[in-house]
C-alpha cells in the first residue's frame, strides 16, 4: 500500500525538478542573449515580462548574476584575474588537486621562466644554499668561502685571476694570498678586488654592501673609473656608478655574528632589517615602508629562528606581527607600545 501511496508523490517530485531545471536553462539563455550584441529592445521587454511572470524566474536570474558579479569583481583586480587564469587554465579535473604538488610545479615554472631572462641567473650556479641553510667551502686555492641563506655564486678561476660572481644572497670571503692571481668578487653593481683579506659581500635589489673585517679591498662600482680602497672596520654600498662613503662598523662583532648565524644591525631602519630577515625565511614578510623607516634598530637577531627574531623586534618596538598563513607574515605598527610583560631581556634593543 505504501508503495502505491508513494509513487505519485515521487512522480510529482520528479516533475517539479524538471520544471526547475527548465527555468534555470531559460534564465541562462536570457542572460546570454542579453549579453550579446544581437539583443534588441523587444528582447529586453520580453525578458522583463518573463522575469515578472514567476518569482522562481527572478530567483534563478539573481543567483546567476550573483555568481557572475563575484567573478567580475575578482576579475577587476589584475592580480586576482591572473590567479583565476592560471588556476583554471589546465583541463578540468578535480582529481588534479590531490596535493599542492601541481601548484608548486606551476609556481616553479613561473619563477624558472623569469630566471631564464635574468642575466644574473642563479639556476646554474656553481655553489648555492637554500633558505635557512649555511655552507662553508674551501676553494681550490685554499681560500674559504662561506655562504649564508638563499645564496648562489659562480666560481671562475683562471691562470690570471680568481673570480667569484655573487648571484644572490651573502658571502663571507677569507682570501688565501696569491700574488700572481688577484681575487675578485663581482656583483651586478661592481667589483671588489681583495688585497689579501676577510670580508662580507651582501647582494640586495638596491645595491651591494661590502663589509670589511680584516685588511682592505679595492671597490669599483660598475661604470666607474676610480676605485675606492675600503679598510677593515668600514662598510660601503656599491650601486651603479657609485661607491658610498664608508661608515664604521664593529668588525669583530660582525664576524662573531656571522659564525653564530646571527644578524648584527647597528642603527638601521627597521624596514631594512625586515628585508634582511626575509632572506632567511620561506614565504613573504609584508609591511608598509612609511610605518617602519622612522624606527631605527640596533640588535643581534637569531637567523636560524626568524620567528623569534621577529618576536624580539616586537618586544622593543610598537609592532604587531601576524602570521596569516605559513607563507605570509604581516608586520604593522601599533599605536600603543607593547605591554610590559612582553618586553623580553633578549638582545634586541631599540635606539
Amino acid at each position, binding site marked *: 500500500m505504501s508503495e502505491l501511496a508513494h509513487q505519485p508523490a515521487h512522480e510529482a517530485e520528479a516533475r517539479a525538478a524538471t520544471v526547475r531545471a527548465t527555468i534555470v536553462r531559460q534564465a541562462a539563455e536570457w542572460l546570454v542573449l542579453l*549579453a550579446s550584441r544581437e539583443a534588441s529592445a523587444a528582447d529586453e521587454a520580453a525578458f522583463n515580462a518573463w522575469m515578472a511572470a514567476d518569482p522562481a524566474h527572478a530567483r534563478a536570474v539573481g543567483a546567476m548574476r550573483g555568481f557572475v558579479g563575484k567573478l567580475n569583481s575578482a576579475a577587476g583586480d589584475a592580480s586576482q584575474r591572473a590567479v*583565476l587564469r592560471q588556476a583554471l587554465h589546465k583541463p578540468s579535473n578535480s582529481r588534479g*588537486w*590531490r596535493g599542492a604538488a601541481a601548484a608548486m610545479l606551476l609556481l616553479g615554472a613561473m619563477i624558472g621562466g623569469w630566471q631564464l631572462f635574468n642575466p644574473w641567473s642563479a639556476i646554474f650556479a656553481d655553489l648555492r644554499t637554500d633558505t635557512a641553510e649555511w655552507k662553508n667551502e674551501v676553494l681550490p686555492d685554499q681560500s674559504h668561502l662561506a655562504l649564508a641563506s638563499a645564496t648562489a655564486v659562480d666560481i671562475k678561476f683562471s691562470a690570471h685571476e680568481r673570480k667569484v660572481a655573487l648571484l644572490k644572497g651573502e658571502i663571507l670571503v677569507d682570501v688565501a694570498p696569491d700574488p700572481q692571481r688577484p681575487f675578485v668578487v663581482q656583483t651586478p653593481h661592481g667589483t671588489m678586488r681583495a688585497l689579501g683579506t676577510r670580508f662580507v659581500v651582501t647582494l640586495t635589489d638596491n645595491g651591494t654592501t661590502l663589509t670589511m673585517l680584516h685588511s682592505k679591498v679595492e671597490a669599483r662600482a660598475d661604470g666607474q673609473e676610480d676605485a675606492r680602497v675600503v679598510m677593515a672596520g668600514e662598510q660601503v654600498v656599491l650601486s651603479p656608478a657609485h661607491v658610498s662613503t664608508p661608515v664604521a662598523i664593529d668588525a669583530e662583532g660582525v664576524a662573531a655574528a656571522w659564525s653564530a648565524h646571527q644578524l648584527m644591525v647597528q642603527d638601521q631602519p627597521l624596514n631594512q632589517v625586515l628585508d634582511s630577515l626575509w632572506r632567511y625565511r620561506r614565504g613573504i614578510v*609584508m609591511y608598509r615602508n612609511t610605518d617602519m623607516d622612522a624606527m631605527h634598530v640596533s640588535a643581534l637577531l637569531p637567523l636560524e629562528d626568524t620567528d623569534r627574531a621577529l618576536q624580539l623586534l616586537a618586544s622593543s618596538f610598537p609592532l604587531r606581527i601576524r602570521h596569516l598563513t605559513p607563507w*605570509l607574515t604581516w608586520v604593522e605598527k601599533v599605536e600603543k607600545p607593547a605591554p610590559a610583560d612582553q618586553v623580553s631581556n633578549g638582545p634586541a634593543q631599540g635606539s
Partner: protein
Amino acid sequence: MSLILCPRRRDVAEMLYTQHHSWLQGWLRKKLGCAHGAADIAQDTFLRLMASRDLLMLQEPRAFLTRTATRLLIDDARHKKIEALYLEELAAQLEHAHAPDPAKMLEAVRALAYLVSVLETLPEKPRQAFLMAQLEELGHDEIASRLSVSSRMVRKYLVQALVHCHDALEQVQP
C-alpha cells in the same frame, strides 16, 4: 557561532566520534604522511558530520567520513594553491603598488578559491568560453574564432556554464 544539538543528536555524534575518530585519523595519516595535518582534517571532518542534517540516518559512517575528508583535503590543496599563486602575483607587483590589507588578502584568497572550486568542474570548452566572456570581455564572435567553433556553439557553452554555476550555488546553500 555555536552548534546546538538535541540530546539524541549529541549522543549519536559522540558515539560516532568514539568509534571512528582514531580510525579516520589513521586513514588520513596514511594518505597525507603527516600526523599534524591528519589531526586537523579529522577534526574538521567531524565538525561537518555533526552539522550534517542526515546525522541520524547515516547508514555507513565511514564512507561518509572518508568522502567528507577527501573533499576537505581537496579544498585545502586548492586554497593553498590559490594562495601561493596570489602571493606570487602580489610579490611581483609589490614594487609598484602598496601592499593590500592582510584581511582583504585573505578574503580575496577565499573568494578566488570559491570561484575556482565552482568553475574547475566545468568541462574545458564551456569553461574557456565563459572565462573569455567574463575575464577578457570578448564578444561571442571573437570567442568563436578563438575556440574554432560556431557562434551558436559559443552561446550553448555560455548557457551551459551559467546553469553549472547556478547548480553549484544550490549545492552550497542548503
